């Protein structure tokens, strides 16, 4: 396996949710969400009722991946911040803890300066949470030796067949 799997636990998940909901208020943003670099949504907060967050997550990750590729082509490590400006809404994208993407959508009620300022602070907090998660995963793996307890250890063929039964 190339990189360790992300495993999200209840405690850290709640901390993440708190951080992004606070960020939304502080930055006066419409939506804040967190995606991993592979396009999986981790958490979302704000006016997401009419938003296709799954597609948003996938396209954001594609966007970041393409921009990363561009960065390397010109000899940069990464572009850590991307900003897309629209007529009404804007999107601010930044990389947190080297592996997750923080997305803030905001309109004229906020400003790029305010968003950048608040994102910076929230990023540090998220950094801490993610390093705790990674060390927790490591610890659990070591504690359990090679037999890391997976909830899927007993999946049977029938379980999988039943997913496709319809």
């Amino acid at each position, binding site marked *: 396996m190339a990189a360790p799997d992300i495993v999200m*636990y209840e405690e850290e998940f709640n901390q993440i949710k708190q951080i992004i909901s606070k960020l939304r208020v502080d930055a006066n943003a419409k939506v804040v969400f967190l995606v991993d670099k592979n*396009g999986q949504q981790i958490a979302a907060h704000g006016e997401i009722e009419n938003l296709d967050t799954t597609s948003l997550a996938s396209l954001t990750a594609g966007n970041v991946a393409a921009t990363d590729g561009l960065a390397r082509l010109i000899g940069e490590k990464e572009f850590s911040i991307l900003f897309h400006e629209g007529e009404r809404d804007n999107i601010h994208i930044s990389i947190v803890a080297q592996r997750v993407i923080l997305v803030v959508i905001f309109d004229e009620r906020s400003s790029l300066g305010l968003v950048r300022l608040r994102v910076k602070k929230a990023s540090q907090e998220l950094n801490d949470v993610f390093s705790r998660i990674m060390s927790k995963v490591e610890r659990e793996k070591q504690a359990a030796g090679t037999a*890391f307890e997976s909830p899927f250890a007993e999946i049977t063929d029938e379980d999988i067949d039943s997913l496709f039964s319809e």
Partner: protein
Amino acid sequence: MTFINYASREINCKIVYYGPGLCGKTTNLQWIYDKTNPGAKGKLISLATETDRTLFFDFLPLELGTVRGFKTRFHLYTVPGQVFYDASRKLILKGVDGVIFVADSQVERMDANVESLENLMVNLKTQGYDLLSIPYVLQLNKRDLPNVASVEEMTRLLLHKNPHEPVIEAVAMKGTGVFETLKGVAKLVLSELTKAG
């Protein structure tokens, strides 16, 4: 890289459809999209050129149901098949859990199949994966066309791995073999989780 969320009891897996240009990767996804009930799928996103050639990727999120109390989501991606989009293909393989190789059964496309498979191996390696150990299903598409290579011939050319791997004959335009292929890879990916860690 499977993403397991214990808090919301969800598991997300990423499946990539790979293969040479015009082999039917997008057609596979389109069929799955058309035949899945609306509650189980998200939007099909297609980043394509004006002539409907895939430019970056197609994306289809699927919710299959629950396994052991965990909601199981599959994110299906296709890569652009055309040779010169290699940089994009590399990006899409990031974090992949399972690969479906869609091969074009027409005799004149055999070279393209082999080239694309070799490209897949190289690109997987740059992401730190090995084709020999990642869940992998071979789909032989377009079996309804008159000038197809035999299954034995194609298997010999395109199956470098152990003989247990699923090889599925398909006609993606008509849906034949499409769900069997997806099920084959889903099974491999989920059973990979049973030995996680």
